[in-house]
């Protein structure tokens, strides 16, 4: 699809190939048919532009639209949907939109960290982390119900935010011989993942499986994470002693 508007709009995405947060943005841009320049960041040596565009967090993804930076993947998704009105990723009805936002937040704040923890578990931690991940996936599968996608007939914000579950996690868990997300345990979610990974806006930006597998060798289990994920997850991993 050609880029929209009467003049070429400049859209750039600063990302990191493994990051599911970055992937969310790419999928949304692909759904809308927006042409963009992708800039791969070396997270151990962040570019001056990244630090300039995201001074508070210094993290990817950063979307640059006509020179203006938008950061935080969920904020970027809302921006994309509001700026390019074709192929909406959120429902029009306010209540359905609220539902989608609720579940996107659930995936982002509850599912992703739980799954991520299982990858980086020591053998002592694994069973407990797995139990938590199973619980979260169960809730998610209940929400999916009989729908093809969380967004209905086509992928929407919840599907996009769940991209890690839809593709990368299955590849990684297979490489590490984990048994968290299985077809037996989650038949509906499994089918969703197959359909999701086969959608063209998703297929266009999936990382090569062999590269993904090479990035998560079994030797990493229990060791320190790449910093871009760690700080985000620190807060999830160290909850307060009691909730207010």
């Amino acid at each position, binding site marked *: 699809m050609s880029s929209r508007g009467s003049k070429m709009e400049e859209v750039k995405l600063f990302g990191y190939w493994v990051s599911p947060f970055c992937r969310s943005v790419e999928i949304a841009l692909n759904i809308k048919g927006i042409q963009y320049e992708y800039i791969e960041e070396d997270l151990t040596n962040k570019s001056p532009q990244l630090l300039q565009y995201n*001074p*508070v967090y210094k993290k990817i993804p950063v979307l640059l*639209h006509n020179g*203006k930076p*938008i*950061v*935080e993947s*969920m*904020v*970027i998704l*809302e*921006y994309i949907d*509001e*700026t390019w009105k074709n192929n909406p990723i959120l429902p029009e009805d*306010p*209540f359905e*939109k*609220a539902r989608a*936002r*609720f579940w996107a*937040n*659930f995936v982002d704040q509850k599912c992703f960290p739980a799954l991520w923890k299982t990858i980086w578990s020591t053998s002592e931690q694994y069973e407990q982390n797995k139990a938590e991940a199973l619980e979260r996936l169960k*809730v998610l599968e209940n929400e999916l119900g009989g729908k093809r996608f969380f967004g209905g007939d086509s992928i929407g914000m919840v599907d996009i935010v769940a991209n890690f579950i839809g593709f990368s996690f299955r590849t990684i868990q297979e490489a590490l011989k984990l048994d968290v997300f299985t077809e037996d345990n989650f038949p509906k979610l499994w089918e969703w993942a197959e359909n999701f990974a086969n959608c063209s806006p998703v297929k266009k930006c999936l990382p090569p499986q062999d590269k993904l597998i090479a990035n998560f060798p079994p030797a990493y289990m229990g060791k320190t994470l790449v910093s871009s994920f760690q700080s985000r997850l620190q*807060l999830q991993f160290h909850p*307060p*002693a*009691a909730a*207010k």
Partner: protein
Amino acid sequence: MDKEVKLHGFWSSPYVYWVIWALKLKGIEYDYIEEDLPNKSELLLRYNPVYKKVPVLVHAGKPISESPVILEYIEEVWPHNPLLPKDPYERSVARFWINFATDKVRSALLSFFWEGEDGKKEAAEQMFDLLKISEEQALGDKKFFGGNSINMVDLIFALFTCWIQTTEQVVGIKVLEPSRLPRLHAWVNNFKEEPIIKENLPDSERMVEHYTRIRSNPN
């Protein structure tokens, strides 16, 4: 069609105030249902089965949970007296700061509240650092985060400010001082003078008493 608006809340829950202020600023009539949190109502558990938490907004019988989602819903259904900018880029900046508050400021506040004698000074400094970033980059020279009038960003920072000020008294360390955070301190005073906010602030004495009790007896 039942157009009724109901809000399930708890008097000491910060996020409930966020919703109350938004409803009041937009002049939306609603019924308030005070939940007894150790003993949650059937309705609450039915409306928010995933998290079982307040606030829950019920509009025409349909429940909406999670305060940022509730605020966006309110903004969309009742667009008068807007609480978010119209321009998508300006909206993204507002949403960024809302996330910053609900994620970073909240975590720092919880640490500030729960840290024991050894860690509380450092937790207070971390709290200060985040407030400094907010003052310099989010508020700047503006009267409010929203510019000349209050918007959703003001509301979220205001509620955290109330809780920070309560925590200062409970823990015994001041963070939001006029000498160190002059513009933010001025903003707090401006904010608390806004008529609707003034009439709907949590009772600070009751809060200090409540949170002092919680801190010394977490169960």
